[in-house]
């Protein structure tokens, strides 16, 4: 076992030293990966409409839906403060160590989201007409 490893280790090193950066089998795998990347890029950067509402989830539960056109400050006991201002929503304060949610800044487009994993906190922007409208409408009523 040990001796076979001893044989392999320098061989693997020399193999990748002497090979080219791209090998024949790469073509197929790279074609798949690059296609996925291009599709992902098109999907992420095509213009999304401005959102109407922000849904706020804590621990996976919907805890509130707010109109983005009504300026508001919401403070959550878990240590998060959210600001809604001129159609945008931002997490302005959080007690989490990484502060990623605060650094994400303000979001305004349908499908945009801010996540604070340490606080189990998620904000998602929804448009007026989308598949989720019916679900949230039912939950709120």
């Amino acid at each position, binding site marked *: 076992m040990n001796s076979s490893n001893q044989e392999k280790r320098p061989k693997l090193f020399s193999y990748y*030293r002497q090979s080219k950066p791209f090998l024949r089998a*790469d073509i197929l795998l790279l074609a798949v990966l690059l296609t996925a*990347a291009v599709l992902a890029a098109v999907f992420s950067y095509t213009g999304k409409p401005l959102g109407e509402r922000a849904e706020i989830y804590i621990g996976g539960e919907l805890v509130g839906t707010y109109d983005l056109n009504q300026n508001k400050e919401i403070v959550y006991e878990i240590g998060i403060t959210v600001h809604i201002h001129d159609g945008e929503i931002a997490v302005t304060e959080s007690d989490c160590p990484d502060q990623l949610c605060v*650094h994400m800044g303000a979001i305004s487009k349908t*499908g945009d*989201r801010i996540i604070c994993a340490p606080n189990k*906190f998620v904000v998602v922007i929804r448009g007026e007409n989308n598949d989720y409208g019916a679900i949230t409408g039912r939950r709120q009523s």
Partner: protein
Amino acid sequence: MNKFNAKMIAYTAITLSAALIIGVIESLLPPVIPALPFLRLGLSNIVLIFALVALGAAPAFTIAFLKSVLVPLLVGNPIMIAYSLPAALLSLGATALLVYTRKFGLPTVSTVASLVHNMVQLCVASLMTGTALVFGYAPYLIFTGTLTGLAVGFAAYLILRFFPKKLLEN
């Protein structure tokens, strides 16, 4: 050369310290895309690919494990371990599988590793927040992960290519 001789331990330690320095510097850098501050270049994967190919699987997994635990502690964000540890180990696992086939170049291997890393992190985030909404980030992560993965893999290739072979011989 015995796997656990002093030389291999020293190499593992030196490579680990390189991974730690890169990891800490990377977390101090401002985010590449301000609106997506969780995106990282994944530069420490250069070190992990080097470790896997030049030192072997045991040193590489040791470095991946220690790096994923120590970098979050060094930057004062222990919650990060929940993301970094499973992501680093699974992406190194994928790297090892592809590297041992010897059929793929390192840029491609690294791209797959970066995608595995990102998807594992999304799974952890989804478990932590209790919602699948985090997977909305997947397209951004697939796109950026492919670009950074290719660049990181090419850097690893260049380092292995021009690394003085004398240093690894007994």
